[in-house]
């Protein structure tokens, strides 16, 4: 249980990190600290607080939070190695560690190379994957997951739900990629009005920035339709399963909030707080959709892990492979 609570803490801290990263780009502070991994020549953790002024406040704070999250994920990976009997969950920890290290390096490279769009977009996109990994670890170490949500009988093996929930998660991630591209190519106000585009349903003229901006708006619509379909299916067929309807309901709430924030981002001419909230809410939509998707496929994980035995301490199945302290 402590491991699960720690994993939740790591996931929350990753969300904070994404918000801090959103503040960096929203305030145009990405290059306010020109060097990396040092800060104006100081070792990162000894940089004087009174020198955190202007854009440095956002960029340096982002680096400090990122380092903290990296350290938390390192501890999580070690903890999983020592205490987690399921090999695939331990592997999630290693992957999360590798991803967050890669993410840090990408962040450094993007500063040293003056924010090239592909690197900056990759940095933003990998951040979402790191968040998804921490969410997946938090979920799979939870008591509910370990009990296979068996309180009301086994999780239904609903193929349709699995497919639309998976499609929703993939679409949300693609939508975030388009959003990151829009953000890092400075196309956030390429269409300056909302809900129309230059007063029309379809933009009357096109250029690459307008195209990526419009794609993000259409993507929001597509994601919303899939989210409604997923939620509708859950509420119609699985109303008695709180592990399914809770994330479904949350998904709808978050998507409504996210579209509102997207509109406000345009109407407020990219106010940096609204813009950053839009980024972190997008990550929350992805995380919620991922949780729902994984829960719909809970049964598949038992089949995937091959031979296993009953673990009395969990009241669940686990790998046979002996682990330190569990053999």
């Amino acid at each position, binding site marked *: 249980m402590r491991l699960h609570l720690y994993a939740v803490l790591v996931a929350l801290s990753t969300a904070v990190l994404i918000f801090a990263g959103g503040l960096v780009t929203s305030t145009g502070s990405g290059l306010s600290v020109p060097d990396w991994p040092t800060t104006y020549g100081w070792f990162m953790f000894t940089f004087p607080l009174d020198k955190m002024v*202007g854009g440095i406040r956002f960029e340096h704070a982002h680096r400090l939070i990122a380092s903290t999250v990296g350290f938390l994920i390192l501890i999580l990976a070690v903890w999983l190695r020592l205490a987690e009997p399921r090999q695939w969950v331990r592997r999630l920890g290693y992957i999360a560690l590798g991803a967050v290290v890669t993410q840090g390096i990408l962040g450094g490279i993007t500063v040293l190379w003056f924010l090239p769009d592909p690197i900056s977009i990759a940095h933003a996109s990998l951040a979402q994957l790191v968040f998804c990994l921490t969410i997946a670890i938090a979920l799979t170490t939870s008591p509910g997951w370990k009990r296979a949500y068996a309180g009301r009988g086994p999780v239904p093996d609903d193929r349709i739900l699995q497919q639309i929930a998976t499609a929703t998660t993939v679409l949300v991630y693609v939508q975030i990629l388009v959003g990151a591209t829009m953000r890092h190519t400075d196309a956030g106000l390429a269409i300056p009005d909302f809900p129309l585009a230059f007063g029309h349903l379809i933009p009357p003229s096109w250029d690459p920035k307008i195209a990526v901006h419009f794609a993000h708006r259409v993507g929001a619509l597509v994601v919303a339709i899939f989210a409604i379909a997923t939620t509708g299916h859950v509420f119609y067929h699985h109303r008695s399963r709180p592990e399914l309807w809770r994330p479904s309901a949350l998904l709808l709430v978050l998507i409504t909030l996210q579209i509102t924030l997207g509109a406000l981002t345009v109407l407020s001419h990219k106010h940096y707080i609204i813009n950053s909230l839009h980024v972190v809410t997008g990550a929350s939509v992805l995380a919620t959709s991922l949780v729902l998707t994984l829960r719909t496929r809970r049964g598949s994980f038992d089949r995937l892990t091959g031979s296993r035995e009953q673990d009395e301490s969990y009241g669940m199945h686990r790998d046979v492979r002996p682990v330190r302290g569990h053999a």
Partner: protein
Amino acid sequence: MNTYLRLCVAFLLLGSIACGGGNTEKSAAPPATAVADPVNPDTAGALKGSIKLEGTPPAAQTINRRSDPYCEQQGEAKTQNFIVSNGGLENVFVYVKDGLGDMKFPVPTTAVVLDQKGCSYAPRVFGIQAGQPLEILNSDETLHNIHALPMNNREFNRGQALKGLKHTHVFTTAEVMVPFKCDVHNWMNAWVGVLNHPFYTVSGSGGTFDIERLPPGTYSIEAWHEKLGTQTQMVTIGPKETKELSFTFKL
């Protein structure tokens, strides 16, 4: 499993090594070869003129500088996009765009100074010859980063954490204009026109400008303003002749 951890650590170290050298920018260009001044002072002419502005420019806005207490303490600062005096527009970069042919000009060894003072750039608009040193100085008791965003020269971004720090940079290629910005203080902007010759100036009080020692010839003269873009005019200057030229920007 140790293999995974070792791979991660190795990746981190390799990345650090690969990226660590990126900040040691070599700003100095090779020294320019000595070139004789092709301008004959007995025949050289001059160009004088003024920059007019039609229309009412937007009122200067007070800049919110609360993000840095030092900058806030320097007093109120206003936007400087349009500085108009006696009907003339200041801070317009005027230069010979074309007409000098293959003439080569000596490159001054004296540095042009771009100062960061009172959380503003001084000067805001200026010119320099390619190969001439540009000395960037921090006169403030706060941090600045000096970030140049050229199209044809090499981009650079240097931090100056302490008062009195200097950084010398040499642009190698002519380019009009190269923007500078401070990412710490997002209101700080400056522009430099980099040219292969010395025939450039910036309009001053009353929008007036003056380019001297021009060899006789027919020239394309361009005027650049940070918000209003460029205007170009042709002018022919005879031996010892001083021509008047006027540009009018419209809002």
